[in-house]
């Protein structure tokens, strides 16, 4: 009896050790396989100037397609598929650089489409996302079948939005964990450029003050993106994009953002604390500066999606 007990205890302990070792081994093998399978134009060259940790800390949430899409929809402007990137263009994206950038572009397009509840065209954009994500080996984060099911069920569009955004967030976290922040940076840049491009189109139609303010507020974001992308300037694929961001940064110097500091306000609503920030930022952007910035955004976007 005693011997049986001791034997059982040893088996349990051994099984625990073996499973954790096997888990680690599987993880190591997966990581090695991922590194070896790094796509063409995004293989690492010179050491990074900024650590992966710093890059990850900064770009964690550069651009949320949800917020820009909501703001655009609130202007009352009609949905326009024409301004979006055509899913058929994915056949033009043969390098990992282009695939990563345009994965970001299509994520922004999806945010815009979802906010207008255009379930009839969302599937083609989901397919584009799936195709491009497979191409840069992050397809596992996009459960295409589930997303497609939600898209065809109009009562499930909120879930579709949540799942799409969540998939992108998980993919982003994975890329940074795998030291592929260069890919993450491109996806985020693509999404940011597309979001601004759509907003620019709407501004030209509506002259909406909120959107103009939001565009002006991107001044800090341009600076951040520029620093991040410069981190990869040793990779020749990044050069044009970095030059574009540099030009855009120069144009944004004409945008004035002032901050007014005061005291925060605290209110309790439905059992929840809400803080109203005291600091208020004011954006000053002339119509001339706005025009030049919009033209530059269009130029960048044209290069990104061609």
């Amino acid at each position, binding site marked *: 009896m005693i011997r049986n007990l001791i034997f059982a205890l040893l088996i349990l302990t051994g099984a625990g050790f073996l499973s954790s070792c096997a888990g680690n081994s599987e993880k190591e093998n997966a990581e090695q396989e991922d590194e070896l399978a790094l796509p063409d134009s995004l293989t690492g060259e010179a050491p990074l100037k900024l650590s992966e940790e710093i890059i990850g800390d900064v770009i964690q*949430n550069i651009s949320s397609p*949800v917020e820009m899409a909501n703001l655009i929809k609130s202007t009352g402007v009609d949905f326009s598929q024409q301004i979006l990137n055509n899913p058929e263009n994915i056949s033009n994206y043969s390098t990992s650089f282009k695939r990563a950038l345009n994965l970001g572009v299509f994520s922004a397009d999806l945010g815009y489409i979802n906010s207008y509840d255009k379930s009839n065209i969302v599937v083609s954009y989901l397919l584009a996302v799936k195709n491009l994500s497979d191409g840069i080996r992050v397809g596992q984060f996009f459960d295409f079948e589930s997303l497609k099911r939600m898209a065809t069920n109009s009562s499930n569009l909120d879930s579709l939005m949540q799942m799409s*955004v*969540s998939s992108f967030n998980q993919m982003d976290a994975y890329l940074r964990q795998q030291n592929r922040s260069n890919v993450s940076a491109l996806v985020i840049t693509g999404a940011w450029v597309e979001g601004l491009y759509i907003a620019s189109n709407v501004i030209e139609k509506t002259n909406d003050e909120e959107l103009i303010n939001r565009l002006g507020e991107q001044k800090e974001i341009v600076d951040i993106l520029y620093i991040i992308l410069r981190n990869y300037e040793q990779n020749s694929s990044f050069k044009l994009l970095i030059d574009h961001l540099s030009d855009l940064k120069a144009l944004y110097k004409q945008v004035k953002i002032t901050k007014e500091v005061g005291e925060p306000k605290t209110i309790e609503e439905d059992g929840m604390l809400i803080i109203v920030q005291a600091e208020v930022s004011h954006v000053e952007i002339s119509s001339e500066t706005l025009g030049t910035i919009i033209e530059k955004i269009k130029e960048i976007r044209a290069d990104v999606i061609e």
Partner: protein
Amino acid sequence: MRKLIFTFLLLLGVGFSGTYAQCNHEALLKDALTQMGDGQYIKDFIVDLKNEKGGGPSGTVKYSVILNSRSQYKFNVVNGAGNSEKVHMQLFDGDKLLVSNKAQGKMYSAFGFVCRSTKVYSLVFSFPEGSEGCARAVLSLQRQFAAGEGGF
């Protein structure tokens, strides 16, 4: 014989209680999304803090978030079942603490933030007394203010 079985069971019990229980983050995320309410999901944050070797405090975990002006956000958090303490969630602007889910001795499961200045903010999580624990938080967009609304 009875002593041996008793000792074995005791050791097993001690082993389990001293071990940091694996967190079911999927279940936590599901709960957090439910409690998010009517807002638009933007991002979720994983909190998994363990004691350092030798029993040192569990530290903090920090995330950067870009929040846009004229927007009201909600940060809600769900604690792991095995936590001995509830997670402390704080939003900072640089070094300046803007809002915490612990106020006047009360722990809230969420806080709202009406942002009036677009920039990068820091969301910091920790456990009281440096204890271990896990949690999942969700950031959602509650509303965007037009000019003239909400003091804008």
